[in-house]
């Protein structure tokens, strides 16, 4: 299977800073599957997502999206292809849930065009997919953390993307909401969406098909979950001894 996203020999540092985030980074994200990008804080995971999207530009190296160089995509075309759910999105104005999700239709609307009824229908469908349609009229600032995360995913789904990037999607969620988000991610991948998410919690990667381990801007290991999710790889990633154990048929990390 060809990769949906392929990064090759990426070098990147933030403007004016000598510290290089990525020196020679290469990785692939297979199509129609879930890839977890796991690493400690500061490994460069969010930067990686921003490079894929084109928010940041590498100093050298290539990024292919669906086998086409990323820079050959117009910005709106990228918006139709990739949805991003940022780590902690501040929404300073109290939009209703549906108004917010409707913003996901922006890549399909020319500059001065208002959303059409068809866009509202697609936004409502996205809300239904995440099970939040009953809250469509609620002000967004009245939602709990978990509900808000689901609404942010719905906004990205309203883009009807082929790729969904999630930056630490469960970092602020309790156990039951984490479960809801991970189930949803699985369902989306089963429907053919390529999903990649970053996390620093090893046990969250259980939902993924592929795993990329990152540390200090380097890929330590990448490949199918059962190959990469090992005590040795994880110990190296986190610089602490880590044991992977089998519990109820699932592999979990013990520290």
């Amino acid at each position, binding site marked *: 299977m060809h990769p949906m996203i392929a990064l090759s020999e990426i070098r990147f540092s933030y403007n004016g800073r000598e510290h290089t985030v990525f020196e020679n980074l290469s990785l692939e994200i297979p199509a129609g599957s879930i890839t977890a990008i796991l690493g400690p804080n500061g490994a460069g995971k969010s930067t990686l997502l*921003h490079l894929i*999207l*084109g*928010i940041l530009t590498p100093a050298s190296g290539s990024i292919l999206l669906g086998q086409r160089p990323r820079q050959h995509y117009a*910005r*709106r*075309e*990228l*918006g*139709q292809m*990739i*949805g*991003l759910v*940022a780590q902690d*999105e*501040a*929404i*300073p*104005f*109290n*939009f*209703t849930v549906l*108004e917010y999700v409707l*913003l*996901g239709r*922006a*890549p399909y*609307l020319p*500059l*001065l065009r*208002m*959303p059409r009824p068809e866009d509202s229908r697609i936004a409502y469908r996205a809300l239904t997919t995440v099970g939040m349609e009953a809250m469509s009229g609620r*002000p967004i*600032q*009245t939602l709990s953390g978990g509900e808000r995360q689901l609404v942010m995913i719905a906004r*990205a789904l309203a*883009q009807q993307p082929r790729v969904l990037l999630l930056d630490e999607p469960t970092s602020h969620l309790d156990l039951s909401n984490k479960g809801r988000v991970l189930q949803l991610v699985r369902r989306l991948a089963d429907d053919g969406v390529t999903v990649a998410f970053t996390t620093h919690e090893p046990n969250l990667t259980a939902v993924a098909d592929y795993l990329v381990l990152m540390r200090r801007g380097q890929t330590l290991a990448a490949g199918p979950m059962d190959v990469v999710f090992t005590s040795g790889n994880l110990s190296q990633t986190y610089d602490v001894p880590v044991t992977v154990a089998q519990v109820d048929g699932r592999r979990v990390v013990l520290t």
Partner: protein
Amino acid sequence: MTIQNYRRALWGLIVLLLGLAGLSLFVGRYPSPIWMPPQTLLHDPLAQRLVLNLRLPRILAAMLLGMSLAASGTVLQMIFRNPLVEPGFLGVSHGAAFGAALSIVALGASGLVTQAAAALFGCLGLVLSYALARHIRYGGWTLRLVLAGIAISALFSAGVGVLKYVADPLTQLPELVFWMLGALWGVTWQETLSILPVTTAALVALLLMRWRLNLLALDDATAFSLGTATARERTVLLVAAVAATAAIVSVSGVVGWVGLIVPQLARSLLGADGQRALPGAVLIGGAFALVCDTVARTALSSEIPLGILTSLIGALGFSTLMVMPQQLAPWGLKD
């Protein structure tokens, strides 16, 4: 609010604004305080001239003032993601005030020269704020712009202080103080028509992009991922908002609070979506400024500066909104 209720509210505001404008034509201190019976217009040539040459251009100017400042306030609050931003904050108002003061004190000017100087220095205030923001070495772009705006505004404010200090207390100072307090006193057709093209073009541009405002109110990364050219779209909106503000300030002087309080009110009444809040703010702003200006020219035998009334009513309104229960003002300050 459902779409039907929103449409009803918007039509209500349109009718209110037009009704107020019609009423305001007959409110004043001629031929007697407060009210001129409409039939007076049929047989009194002085009343006809008064209504056509003085009240009508002033009513239009007041509506343009309220609409422009409220629209600019709404837009700037959304693109800077800060509900406490107001149209003059990027050095525009204080720059314009300095320009007007300079022309009054140094050139002994009035009328169109003062207006041109105010517009010029208003734009200079923006340019300087922008240039300074580019050189600030820390913080995100929004924080840098806000900091630069505060610094440039303070600089122009100090300049105005110096000019007040050296102004002739008998001839220049009263005009200067009156200008600083903001007023539409003596606005002519010429002045109203001089700002009409800029303010109308800016309002149309802002209204056409009202839905995009929502995108620009999101995080930059999210807005980018939605295909938005954030820097370019923000610049277009910023230029339109500042142009409208500079044009208005050049005629009226510094009129505070309209651009801060009206957007808040529009959001709390019609919702936060720019598609609804912006048209609402334009209409509420027009009505608010019109009412304030009508009171300013009618309440006393001498003119009350408009800026005093908008600040008085605005501050009272703002305080009321801040202490309102959360259900009535969901955007309000939280614990």
